[in-house]
């Protein structure tokens, strides 16, 4: 399986996701934001970080960069794309996934482990995962998911909510919402469910010495689903 990770000026989780993808068997290539075309890939990842210094709105500049035309075409023709953290912010700015990510409700940068509940497994990203709740890491200042009432109805009707913040038992109550996200939403799909945007970082949970292994479960499952 071939993957591509896009590096924007200010990306800083690009090498982490490269390590994670390789560890679970992807042949990964790093792709510079100013390139015109992504190489032949089964998966494209937009990594976390602070692309373009978060100028204007997080992800807004990166969403207009040269490589993104190719990424958007890839996604629109059914290609699998994951945007993590800043990558999620870039995805919402391109319009590939619905909604926006606002400043965290309590104006703090949040850096901690969280639990997320898998909302549905009828998609290639979470199909066959034998857990309902995963422990991932978040590190962001603008992760407060918001969308209009019409968009919310649409994403709920289409089962586009991928994961919700919860406690270790899967309770998705407001007190387990770290950043004020609408309905505890931590990740959403596009309509075709081939594009996933999420604030949590699975690549930070691929080694017990890095505080957990639920990221291993995610990547292992993903490559098996793609085969």
């Amino acid at each position, binding site marked *: 399986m071939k993957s591509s990770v896009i590096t924007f000026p200010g990306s800083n989780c690009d090498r982490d996701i490269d390590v994670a993808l390789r560890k679970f068997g992807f042949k990964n290539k790093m792709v510079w934001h100013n390139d015109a075309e992504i190489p032949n890939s089964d998966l494209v990842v937009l990594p976390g970080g602070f692309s373009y210094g978060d100028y*204007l*709105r997080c992800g*807004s500049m990166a969403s*207009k960069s040269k490589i993104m035309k190719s990424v958007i075409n890839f996604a629109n023709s059914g290609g699998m794309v994951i945007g993590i953290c800043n990558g999620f912010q870039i995805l919402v*700015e391109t319009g590939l996934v619905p*909604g*926006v990510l*606002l*400043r*965290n*409700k*309590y*104006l703090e940068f949040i850096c901690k482990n969280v639990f997320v509940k898998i909302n549905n497994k009828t998609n290639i990203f979470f199909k066959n995962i034998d857990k309902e709740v995963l422990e991932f890491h978040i590190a962001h200042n603008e992760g*407060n998911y*918001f*969308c*209009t009432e019409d*968009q919310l109805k649409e994403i709920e009707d289409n089962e586009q909510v991928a994961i919700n913040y919860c406690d270790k038992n899967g309770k998705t109550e407001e007190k387990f919402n770290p950043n*004020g996200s609408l309905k505890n939403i931590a990740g959403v799909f596009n309509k075709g469910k081939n594009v996933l945007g999420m604030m949590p970082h699975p690549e930070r949970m691929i080694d017990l010495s890095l505080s957990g292994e639920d990221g291993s479960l995610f990547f292992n499952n993903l490559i098996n689903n793609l085969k």
Partner: protein
Amino acid sequence: MKISVIITLKKDVLDPQGKVIQQTLDGMGFNNINEVRQGKYFEIDTKENDNNKAKEKVEEMCKKLLANLVIENYKIIDAQ
């Protein structure tokens, strides 16, 4: 020709920064404020000399980049 743009958050979007600014102002004694909403201001110096054409272009810029229409409104202020 200089055209200005003001971007504001839509009415039903939470503005935690505006709220903190209001609370701080309140603490400073400015205590008859109903609400503070924070926004962005742009000055665009364009080579276009036709006022209407310039405004049209700036409107396109607002829709495509300067504002995120899910959460923000834009207001174009006349050329100076």
